[in-house]
């Protein structure tokens, strides 16, 4: 179990960026059920978000990522702890005026049209009447909603709904955006579009806090990644800092009549139809690899492939949160052997 936060330092001499949000020792316990059972969600979370960065919050379902955003907005009160948002108390209206929030689901009014939704939300964003039309036009262009302005919200597809909630978040021209699962449930085209919008926001100097389960998208978008596990940030830093030295290894594929056991290496998958076994060999020690290959040759096994690979964020996430497959690797069919084998890499 990881109890210590792994915060990676910035290079020596580099000035500290201006903090947009600072959270210190945030605890949140929900009370549920008839007996008001205590369910701790956040347990002493510390986090600083710097101006102009895209910080991705990564964690399992129920890790408290959405709760953290709601605490920052004042929708949920922390049980303990303190923090500031743009130098103001968490949840204060002045702070919220400079924040754009996209909730996890598109919570919108189904009977309103896209135009009516934007007009209503522009009023709530306290946009001066002189700037209202231009702000609406700007977010419509940013989110490519021009063709949907008269469509009822209830008739929009998931992709358009996500764009609309993003447009609502952008209405007040906020300095800081909180996007809760902005890419969830989107088709590849819509995902690309939303990612492009987020990149443009960074280019415009906005700060973005993003919750997502889609690890490749986080890898592609985030400047820093904060890993939230068991109510605490257990690792925080840039992707390369987080992965350095831990993600390199080799993928080894061997053909045999039955599953082969190798000393000190875990089997990732075995396809009986083709006799292919797949292993993940962590680390880049050439001597160890040489010894292993020698043993395979001695046993008369056929090596089908040996590919150097980086494991990426998914493996790092599994390692830090100490996730392990709960059951032994299942036998994949010949059709999905490659995919299944890759999914069950264990270092």
């Amino acid at each position: 179990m990881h109890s210590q936060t792994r915060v990676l330092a910035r290079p020596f001499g580099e000035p500290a960026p201006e903090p947009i949000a600072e959270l210190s020792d945030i605890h949140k316990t929900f009370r549920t059920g008839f007996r008001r059972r205590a369910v701790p969600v956040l347990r002493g979370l510390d986090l600083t978000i710097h101006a102009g960065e895209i910080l991705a919050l990564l964690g399992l379902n129920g890790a408290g990522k959405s709760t953290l955003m709601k605490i920052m907005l004042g929708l949920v009160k922390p049980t303990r702890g303190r923090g500031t948002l743009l130098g103001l108390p968490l949840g204060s209206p002045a702070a919220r005026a400079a924040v754009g929030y996209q909730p996890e689901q598109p919570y919108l009014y189904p009977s309103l049209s896209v135009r009516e939704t934007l007009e209503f939300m522009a009023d709530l964003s306290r946009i001066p009447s002189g700037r209202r039309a231009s702000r609406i036009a700007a977010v419509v262009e940013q989110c490519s909603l021009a063709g949907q302005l008269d469509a009822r919200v209830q008739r929009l597809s998931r992709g358009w709904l996500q764009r609309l909630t993003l447009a609502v978040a952008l209405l007040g021209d906020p300095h800081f955006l909180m996007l809760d699962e902005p890419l969830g449930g989107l088709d590849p085209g819509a995902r690309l579009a939303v990612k492009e919008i987020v990149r443009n926001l960074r280019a415009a100097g906005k700060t973005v806090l993003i919750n997502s389960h889609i690890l490749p998208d986080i890898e592609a978008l985030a400047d820093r990644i904060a890993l939230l596990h068991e109510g605490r940030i257990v690792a925080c830093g840039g992707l390369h800092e987080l992965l350095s030295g831990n993600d390199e290894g080799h993928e080894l594929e061997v053909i045999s009549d039955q599953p082969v056991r190798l000393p000190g290496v875990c089997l990732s998958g075995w396809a009986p139809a083709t006799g292919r076994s797949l292993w993940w060999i962590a680390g880049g020690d050439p001597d160890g690899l040489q010894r292993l290959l020698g043993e395979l040759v001695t046993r008369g096994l056929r090596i089908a492939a040996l590919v150097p690979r980086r494991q990426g964020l998914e493996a790092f996430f599994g390692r830090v949160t100490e996730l392990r497959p709960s059951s032994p690797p299942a036998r994949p069919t010949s059709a999905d052997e490659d995919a299944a084998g890759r999914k069950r890499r264990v270092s």
Partner: protein
Amino acid sequence: MSAVFSLARHTFLDALREKAFLLLGLFGAIMLMLSRLLNPLALGEGRRVTLDIGLGLIAICGFLLITVLGTRMVHKEIDRKTILLILAKPIRRIEFLAGKFLGLVGVLAVTIAGMTLLLAAVMALSGYRVESSLAVAGLYAFLELFVLAALAMVLIAFTSPVLATFFLVGLYVVGHLATSLIDLAAMLPDPSAGRIVQVVFYLLPRFDLYSYTLEVMHGAAVSGQQLLWGGAYAAAYAGGALLLALVVLRAREFS
């Protein structure tokens, strides 16, 4: 447009979409039907019967509107989680509450005014004289529902629409019988129990203040002082209730 006014407008339009004003059409149809049916049986008391039924229907329809619409509109925001979107904007909870309340009051005002005008029209069509006291009756019905709408805000801030409706019905009935509590307090042998009953009396809404049917039937005038007192009481009571609703709403979390 101010945020409060925008929220009120949104609530009003939402009520329109929920077809709340169908009540008006229903009221008009029932009034016309009853006046035609009952007039031959009224033995020269047709005007009185029409007024009695009309004012009774205004009270019932208004009450239905509050219980159906008033209890649902805040809960709907919480249930659909659109409240997350609203409160993530620079909107204070007092503004949210004020917007919702004003929207509901707007719906009530239009509905009560519409029903009063329809009643006047039915009376005029039936050949009865229409007096200004009918407008006062409409105003009193509005003030009663104004207080009830504020109570609906308190209830819906901490409970479900079903329970809120249940409590609202209880408060409506007890509010009409509130003066009986004073009689009860006088009859109690224990003075401390009597004082407790008196406190309860002052806490309960005084809907009996807005019972004006008899005066309308007899064409009795209402003094300006009476009207002012009725308005001031409604404003003070609703203000207190909204303050309580605000305290509850500020303590609530929306996760």
